[in-house]
């Protein structure tokens, strides 16, 4: 028990997010008399989170290198419209259309980075220009037709569809999505194996580790959570494509951030650009890479959102950038640079979207919703700063 408390205290920032998420979910579940935690609503919540989480992941890295990108909201709206045009007017095959849009996104990111990395113009200003430009561009694309309806089901499935159940059966667990359960089980096994090898390595290098009991407790607890999530999802239509894509993005980016040379370089540039430069890292190149990734993820977000609505609208993407920035900060990224994790930004996005989803369920007045979202953001950042100070 004592150890549990010290561990909690030491990692309060990290665990605080999970605790906050759990608390928010519990509160809404009670207030909505269980509707919030229903399979259907959780599936819905995760699909809503998808396009913001994807942006938050990219934004986290942008903030880690001490920059900001305000253009991503309308960029994703604009690129979503481009996708719609590509499919309905240029009649590109779905896959090719998506590919083109993703490439365009990366290029747009490079363009934003050009004045930033090349001339040292503050990213706030450079991306504000992008915000205006893409907003105009979005209006332009949708001006002639208004909302562009997308007829291709395969495209729309990205925002609404679910993975097929390979083991559909009427007798064994009817109404339950077996493939999702299987994926959940695989995830649990992978998680446990990963944790075990991680622990072994830490012991070998004499890092502090949890005592055996607590470690086992942690494994069981998190496995149960993973199991529960897959059970809840399996109770509706199973895992959606959006969730698959979101998880893939998070896993890949998390790997890049923690395990690759590129990731180390990004965090070093954020932590001390001058020292990074003198260690042979090109701050300029890293800036380009991070903004290009942001543009790429904006495109992905635009595709997910457009597919979800099955159409491109002139308002698509409005305020996405601020949602993403809020999610990143709730997730623990530091404006001073060099600190912030990908998994944190996913949790941040979940916290943020749970709030929105829950308040919508309860029919909370929209004006009040904004105020509460603002307060939660403020609280998260204050909590972050205070816990960080106490530790150092």
């Amino acid at each position, binding site marked *: 028990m004592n150890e549990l408390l010290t561990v909690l205290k030491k990692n309060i920032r990290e665990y605080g997010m999970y605790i906050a998420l759990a608390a928010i979910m519990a509160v809404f579940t009670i207030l909505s008399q269980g509707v919030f935690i229903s399979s259907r609503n959780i599936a819905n919540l995760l699909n809503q989170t998808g396009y913001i989480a994807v942006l938050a992941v990219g934004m986290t890295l942008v903030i880690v290198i001490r920059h900001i990108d305000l253009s991503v909201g309308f960029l994703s709206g604009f690129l979503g419209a481009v996708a719609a045009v590509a499919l309905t007017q240029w009649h590109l095959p779905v896959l090719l259309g998506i590919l083109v849009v993703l490439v365009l996104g990366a290029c747009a990111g490079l363009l934003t980075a050009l004045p930033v990395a090349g001339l040292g113009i503050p990213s706030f200003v450079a991306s504000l220009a992008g915000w205006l430009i893409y907003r105009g561009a979005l209006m332009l694309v949708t001006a002639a037709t208004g909302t562009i309806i997308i007829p291709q089901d395969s495209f729309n499935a990205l925002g609404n569809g679910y993975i097929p159940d390979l083991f559909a059966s009427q007798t064994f667990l009817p109404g339950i999505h077996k493939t999702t359960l299987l994926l959940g089980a695989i995830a649990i096994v992978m998680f446990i194996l990963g944790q075990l090898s991680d622990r072994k390595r830490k012991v070998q290098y004499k890092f502090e580790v949890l005592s055996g009991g607590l470690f086992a407790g942690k494994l069981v607890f998190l496995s149960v959570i993973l199991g529960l999530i897959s059970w809840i999802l399996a109770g509706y239509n199973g895992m959606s494509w959006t969730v698959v894509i979101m998880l893939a993005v998070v896993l890949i980016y998390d790997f890049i951030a923690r395990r690759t040379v590129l990731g180390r370089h990004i965090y070093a540039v954020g932590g001390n650009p001058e020292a990074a430069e*003198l260690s042979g890292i090109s701050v300029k190149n890293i800036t380009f890479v991070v903004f290009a990734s942001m543009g790429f993820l904006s495109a992905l977000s635009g595709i997910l959102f457009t597919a979800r609505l099955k159409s491109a609208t002139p308002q698509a993407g409005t305020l996405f950038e601020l949602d993403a920035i809020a999610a990143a900060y709730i997730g623990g990224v530091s404006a001073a640079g*060099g600190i912030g994790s990908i998994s944190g930004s996913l949790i941040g996005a979940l916290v943020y979207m749970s709030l929105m989803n829950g308040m919508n369920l309860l029919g909370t007045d929209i004006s009040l919703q904004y105020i509460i979202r603002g307060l939660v953001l403020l609280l998260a950042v204050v909590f972050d700063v205070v816990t960080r100070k106490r530790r150092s």
Partner: protein
Amino acid sequence: MSDNILEMRHIVKTFPGVRALSDVSFAVRRGEIHCLVGENGAGKSTLMKVLSGVYPHNDFEGEILLNGKNIEFNGIHDSELAGIGTIYQELALVPEMTVYENIMLGHELRRGMGIDIQEMIQRAEDLLKRVRLSVNPSAKVKDLGIGKQQLVEIAKALSRNVSLLILDEPTAALNEDDCDNLLDILRILKTQGVTSIMISHKLKEVLSIAETITVLRDGQTICTLDREKDKVDEQMLIKHMVGRSIENIYPPRASKPDESVVLLEVKNWSAYDPNLGRKVLNNVNFKVHKGEVVGLSGLVGSGRTELARSMFGNPDGYAIAGELSFKGRKQRFAHPSSAIRAGLAYATEDRKKNGLVLIKSIQENISLANLQGVSKHGIINEELDKQTALNFVNSLSIKTPGINQLCMNLSGGNQQKVSVAKWLFVGPDLLIFDEPTRGIDVGAKYEIYTIINDLVAKGMSILMISSELPEILGMSDRIYVVANGTIAGELDGKSATQEAVMRLATQY
């Protein structure tokens, strides 16, 4: 009983995983100059931070008596009110602000709604006189040399009516002249009734100024010595500090440079700094042989660091003229990365500002400049990365609870060792070492000199920039003296004397 201005009793201070001070007791007599010495990580800075309230009184155990009265500080502000002025290991001036604004920072004089600039400048001038510094109070701090900045710091501390002045390695970054000047100021302040506690790794200056010397080791008081009564000398201090004696601080070198191979040759090298709007280097010519230790001496600001950086990928964007040949090839490096790839490395003088990523761990810092060395296809091999860091922590005896410790939690000297480790891991052909032993204790200095000897024995070359003349004289095969952005002269390492170097350094 003697009149003690300060007594610290049984101080214990722990950080997560580190017992920085375990039961330190320490007394300072009124009006004396008391020096605090000890190895890197011994706990000197921590002890002074305990005293000045950086760590509030419920953050450590033990008691502090000031003028015989028990005191409990909750912050730096409290200690300032009690008459304790502190100058920390890192300079704490705002470079973009003027001298007088810095001196009066935090207690500006008001007049009506605004501030009384006239009176503030007047006050600042008085204080500057006390530290015998003649600069315009309205000059910007960033335009002053580092020696003068240090004096401005002291003036700033004096502005608060201090009776006890704490200085944490005030001379580490200063050249000999500035050091002497600063020590003189301390002596003058002493006659005005100011008691000083000074931390330093420069034992010579400790012996020249201290009346009493306290030695810390591993968070404990080893002894307190009276310089005259106990007949303290350098060997004695070293023995108490390190726990063994070191006969020759500059270990003898068996290997000889290979004069037939010129590794680096620079001809008519000039550099213009567009930001400053002036030439920082003018017609520099010099060369380094294989397996040679070349010393670059000169005053602070003479252009030594500029020379190093202009060769090392020119990160400041100087306009450069001249010719550089490295390993027999004429080339210019467009970015530090190409210099590193070619085998040229540069360990910076200011580890905090541009040497280390302080918010990252030892492990991440050591491999930062050579991640290829611990990765495959861009994916880092954690195992190898950790092993590498562990090896360096052991071989350089970096004092830390583990390789995952953040560099900002290390003592100054141990940070320097991490920075050294980073470049050793790159394994270059020529390592430019800018102030390699700044802020490092004698034991660690000896280790670094031994490493330098090992490296040149393996055929590597070292270009060592240093403001410490004994180090230049003790380690170099050849010495170039830099003055005013150009080479003022070349000396042989064996026969050169301090006087000869200083004559060249100040000749312009």
